[in-house]
């Protein structure tokens, strides 16, 4: 398949998605830019409500209308701007070239159709196969995602499956047409941890087999550390830091990322280590403060932070940070991990 330059398979440029509610304009996504490389796993992290899901839904143009609107931006895939496509062309991309799995498979599976039917359906939409071929392909898919005895389970209904098995079915449907990009929005949040491990291993394995790319959205910093190559940290609708996974964990340069890292409990930590969480709460997305959105919670804030929003700057190769003081962190003038 044709690629855009530099191995980039997807490029999101200055995306802005707003919701027009009775209380005012919710700037759910407000200036998100990133690129996705072929074969990589990109993690998007940030607290509830920071715009992770809306970013994903915007890429597939699944924003609920008319309340929501993509007001600005470009989503370049395969040399085309997805935001400029007509409905028909868009259909061809959705599910076929880019597909998505959600946190709760029950909301995307139809309870009245058998699992087999639904997998077949996802094949039929995009390909011209005979009925027999479709069935064979579907069985192969179910087997690939680790459904035991797929022939027997073909005629089962979603409610007869466990949460983990349903998520496997969703993955089967998502990869049915060998998409180049799989977007997984909190794919394991509803699952128990041993099942989460199974699903994440499966996704990773399939990614390597098919040389596709994954965007994984999660609030679990352990999952990101294990599976992501690069990470975008979001806060209140904006990307605040974007780099490879090692930089994000070992050299975070945005006070929000630094705070996140000091908030997490980890299995290997020393006994009763004191966590150093960020105080306060994220702001409402309706009345964002002027200047840096993190200002009210930031203990490094200076006068300049009140004036304008700090642009996302590349402070070292492939390490983007939106903070006026990142350079000082970088040069070791400001202590990051002390308190």
């Amino acid at each position, binding site marked *: 398949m044709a690629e855009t330059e530099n191995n980039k398979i997807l490029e999101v440029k200055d995306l802005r998605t707003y919701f027009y509610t009775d209380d005012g304009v919710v700037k759910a996504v407000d200036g998100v830019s990133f690129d996705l490389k072929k074969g990589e796993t990109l993690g998007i992290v940030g607290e509830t409500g920071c715009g992770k899901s809306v970013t994903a839904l915007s890429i597939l143009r699944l924003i609920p209308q008319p309340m929501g609107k993509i007001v600005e931006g470009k989503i370049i895939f395969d040399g085309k701007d997805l935001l400029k496509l007509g409905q028909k062309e868009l259909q061809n991309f959705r599910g076929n070239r880019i597909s998505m799995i959600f946190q709760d498979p029950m909301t995307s599976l139809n309870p009245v159709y058998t699992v087999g039917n639904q997998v077949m359906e996802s094949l039929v939409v995009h390909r011209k196969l005979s009925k027999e071929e479709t069935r064979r392909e579907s069985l192969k898919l179910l087997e690939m995602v680790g459904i035991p005895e797929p022939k027997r389970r073909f005629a089962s209904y979603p409610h007869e499956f466990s949460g983990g098995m349903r998520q496997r079915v969703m993955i089967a449907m998502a990869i049915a047409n060998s998409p180049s990009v799989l977007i997984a929005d909190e794919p394991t949040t509803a699952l128990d941890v041993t099942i989460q491990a199974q699903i994440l291993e499966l996704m990773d394995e399939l990614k390597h087999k098919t040389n596709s790319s994954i965007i994984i959205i999660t609030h679990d910093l352990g999952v990101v*550390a294990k599976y992501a190559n690069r990470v975008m940290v979001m806060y209140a609708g904006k990307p605040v830091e974007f780099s490879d996974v090692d930089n994000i964990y*070992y050299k975070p340069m945005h006070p929000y990322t630094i705070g996140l890292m000091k908030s997490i409990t*980890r299995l290997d930590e020393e006994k009763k280590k004191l966590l150093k969480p960020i105080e306060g709460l994220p702001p409402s997305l309706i009345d964002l403060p002027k200047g840096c959105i993190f200002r009210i919670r930031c203990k490094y804030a200076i006068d300049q932070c009140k004036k304008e929003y700090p642009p996302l700057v590349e402070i070292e190769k492939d390490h983007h940070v939106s903070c006026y003081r990142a350079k000082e962190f970088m040069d070791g003038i400001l202590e990051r991990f002390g308190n």
Partner: protein
Amino acid sequence: MENNILLEVKNLKKYFKLRSGFLSQRFAGSVKAVDDISFFIRRGETFGLVGETGCGKTTVARVILRLVPQTGGEAIYNKVNIFKLTSREMFKIRREIQVIFQDPYASLSPRMTIGDIISEPMEIHKIDSKKNRMKKVKEFLSIVGLNPEHINRYPHEFSGGQRQRIGVARALVLTPKLLLCDEPVSALDVSVQAQILNLLTDLQKEFNLTYLFIAHDLSVVKHVSDRIGVMYLGKLFEVANSEDLYKKPLHPYTMGLLSAIPIPDPEMERKRRRIVLEGDVPSPIDPPKGCSFHPRCPNAQDICSRKEPELKNYSKNENEHLAACFFAGKHI
């Protein structure tokens, strides 16, 4: 038994009867939600109960609080068996045993001000005059990190983390000795989660509290607990202090559980060996015979499907490291 034990649970069982059909109400088997578990909590320590959804953690707390009757066993609090108490005696003891839940919103009445919510336990137990109660509420609001001036606000005006603080204040006004925390931070984002965990740690020191800390997230449980019990399908599979549980787990399920939890450290994750437990947790209605873990256990032998392993001590010190496995300590 040592005499610094505040709560001892002995052979606790709770079976829920299942009935089929709306009208027929025929007996259709039972769920062994808690099936013969024993553990103790020392004064001032935190005992963690961890395990996947449905393994029986919440039921343990509910039975201890006598919100549901036990099927068997004892819960000895301060040398008395809670299950033998009259309801008046139980009422008295409930002052000393308080609880906080996962979803603070569901457990707070939406039409009451937070002042009324927090003072209600004092009212029920007829403590202090109304004026003094309000003074105490304000004091506890600031102890849990809320603004005492917000005493007349309603729960919906607070964020999830703040609501959990309200729940904590309500549990603390009676100055209890034992606090049962059932998934207190599971619904919260990491930074808020950390705020609440720090609060619970501080309060434990300040008020000399003993915690039963229940959660499905082992890294959170390990962070707060001195000792941990690992549950699976209503049984305790392993009990150890948190360091030992992490560094030298004895039960294959604990090993799998530990391995399934990624550590937020990319370098470490690249090096770490991964054990992926296969299959789903079986239904508690008809759990596998013998060791209930055998269908998923990489170490399972013939005997495992025939006999049930006992929870036994494997440490030279009494009661220090227990596991229920015929091949405890064998690596996967």
